[in-house]
């Protein structure tokens, strides 16, 4: 049984100041009795993980954090624990899809009502998590995507990358019959229904755009909110083969195949 904020009162290591966190006093976003989890997939992010943890501690003390160490070859796991995170170590590398899904399984089994996806490389801002959470807390959205493009500020993609994302956004918009500007964004919030879905079924190859198709297929509601991001501080993008066309073709193919897949049957959850 996980108690909320059990990580909060951890040792202050490496001179990283941790603001004291106590249940109740930190609920600045109206969680009430609901519990929030930040899922941080990390692969060889030892350099940046403590900064990410500090950012989360300071700006989102109302959420628990779980770092999914995806079989890193460096000290990611150690550094994350040092910074006070709960860490799940995957014994073999599963890739971004498998790592994030581990977080959703954990969120599902531990009964979290709200789960965020937050990169371990420092490009996402913990300050923006509250804005991501709002549509879900208001109760009419299952999945919220933090978009870099919804407002012309803080754009962090350039050149071929931007072109690729634009094309993909157009394709996804057609499939979902709903305007989506940033389908590759890994800055997301999921409500309980989406957590349950992702714990059962989560795309492995290009999880961000593909999960949108999955979510629509299951009849869940998606919403985008603007979210500025930083340029990445370290690590390598999970999108490695970024020679535009090749990547685009593969993602588009994956998405088209996703539209062929049937609905996932999920056992009805006992109302808590």
């Amino acid at each position, binding site marked *: 049984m996980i108690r909320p904020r059990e990580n909060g009162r951890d040792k202050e290591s490496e001179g990283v100041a941790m603001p004291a966190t106590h249940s109740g006093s930190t609920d600045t976003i109206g969680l009430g009795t609901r519990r929030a989890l930040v899922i941080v997939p990390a692969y060889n992010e030892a350099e940046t993980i403590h900064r990410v943890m500090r950012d989360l501690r300071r700006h989102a003390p109302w959420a628990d954090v779980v770092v999914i160490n995806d079989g890193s070859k460096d000290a990611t796991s150690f550094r994350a624990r040092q910074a006070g995170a709960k*860490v799940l170590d*995957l014994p*073999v590398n*599963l890739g971004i899809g*498998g790592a994030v899904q581990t977080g959703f399984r954990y969120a599902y*089994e531990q009964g979290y009502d709200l789960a965020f996806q937050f990169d371990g490389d420092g490009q996402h801002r913990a300050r923006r998590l509250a804005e991501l959470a709002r549509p879900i807390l208001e109760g009419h959205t299952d999945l919220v995507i933090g978009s870099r493009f919804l407002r012309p500020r803080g754009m962090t993609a350039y050149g071929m990358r931007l072109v690729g994302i634009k094309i993909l956004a157009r394709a996804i918009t057609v499939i979902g019959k709903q305007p989506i500007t940033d389908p590759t964004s890994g800055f997301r919030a999921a409500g309980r229904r989406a957590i349950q879905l992702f714990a059962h079924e989560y795309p492995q190859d290009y999880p961000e755009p593909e999960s949108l198709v999955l979510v629509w297929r299951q009849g869940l509601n998606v919403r985008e909110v603007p979210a500025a991001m930083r340029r990445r501080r370290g690590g390598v993008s999970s999108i490695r083969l970024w020679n535009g066309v090749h990547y685009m073709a593969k993602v588009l193919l994956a998405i088209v195949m996703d539209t062929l897949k049937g609905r996932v049957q999920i*056992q009805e959850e*006992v109302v808590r």
Partner: protein
Amino acid sequence: MTWTQRIVLLLGGLTLLGVTLELIRKRRLREEYAVLWICTGLMILAFVVMPGALFSVAEWLSLHYTVLMMLVCFIFLAAIVLHYSVVISRHSDRERDLTQELAMLKDELAKLKEEAREPPPPPVEPRPRPPALRT
């Protein structure tokens, strides 16, 4: 069928059978998959012994051209490869599930060890466990 053809077929069939049996003996091939290859090997040997049978089958399927024979072989092999793709996909799904489950169990175990060392924490309110994931 010329003698050369028969000798080549004989060697091919025996090699296939030999390799299959050796793999089973070394426990590197599960019997369920081995059955397929043993049957294939035996069929080749049967055609070496009774070449007439091969031509009867060809006649029956109206395979008058070598190209058509090749096509039949190709379809046979393609079906096997497709089957293996399905098997591989299933295995990678299981491997992922097991890896994720293992990571969570390791965490659970570490926590239990921690609790065993420390005095028991104050009781926590029980939270109903959600239905198990299908695997």
